[in-house]
């Protein structure tokens, strides 16, 4: 009697484990066609440091720290209670912007967003990002073959990387 219950329990456990593994694999996107992901710069978004992310995304990481790029005052705020949604607003006097990258230095993957601009688009650009802990938030603009950046330290109470 005891034996057969054991046996049933084993079969049941086995079934549950294999089913959940399958579900995990399906959900993690391993079964996706590659075509879908072709336009998404995987190595830039999975980079672990700001320099690596910029290298992968923009080809070089030499930056002019210049006053032509600004964050709006209070956006991002220097102190945010909830890191899961921090407003951010970028302004600039630059023309011919090709690309903008938004990075959070201490996040597990620093690159938060990359915007490909056409001449029809104008700043300011606003959005919301997640910040995992007190960190430097960086905006890098690529225009005319050069990179310009601005940054601000943001303190967060509740980390927002869940």
């Amino acid at each position, binding site marked *: 009697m005891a034996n057969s219950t054991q046996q049933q329990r084993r079969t049941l456990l086995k079934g549950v484990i294999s089913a959940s593994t399958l579900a*995990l694999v399906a*959900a*993690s*996107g391993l079964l*996706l066609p590659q075509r*879908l*992901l072709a*336009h*998404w*710069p995987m190595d830039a*978004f999975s980079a672990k440091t700001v320099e690596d992310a910029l290298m992968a995304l923009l080809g070089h990481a030499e930056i002019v720290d210049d006053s032509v790029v600004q964050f709006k005052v209070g956006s991002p705020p220097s102190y945010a209670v909830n890191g*899961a*949604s*921090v407003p951010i607003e970028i302004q600039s006097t630059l023309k011919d912007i090709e690309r903008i990258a938004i990075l*959070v230095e201490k*996040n*597990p*993957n*620093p*690159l*938060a*967003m*990359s*915007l*490909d*601009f*056409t*001449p*029809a*688009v*104008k*700043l*300011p*650009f*606003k*959005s*919301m*990002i*997640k*910040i995992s802990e007190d960190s430097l938030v960086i905006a890098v603009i690529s225009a005319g073959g050069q990179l310009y950046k601005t940054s601000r330290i943001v303190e967060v109470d509740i980390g*927002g*990387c*869940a």
Partner: protein
Amino acid sequence: MGLIAKDRIRAKLKEDETTVRLLLAHPMHTGRGKNEAGELIPAEFIQDIRCWRNDDEVLTVKCGTATARNPYFSFQLVGGQLGDKITIRWVDNVGAKGTAETSVG
């Protein structure tokens, strides 16, 4: 997803600029968060958002996991006319897609 919401988009012409505001309904799981039972929630986040004005592609936004839940974006387009059609399409990392459309008012 448990979210009863839809993507929202507004476009407004003011002087010589069109302001587009976009709010997408998406949980944006990073793959590091846990559910109530303490299990990891698999990553599910928007990767690619494209915006068209009439037939011209004007902006591409690529998102990583650090984009907030129910992502919000706002940007300006140079010029524009009343009645211009603004179209948005997004794709996430598990292949879900969405689209939103509005005309400039």
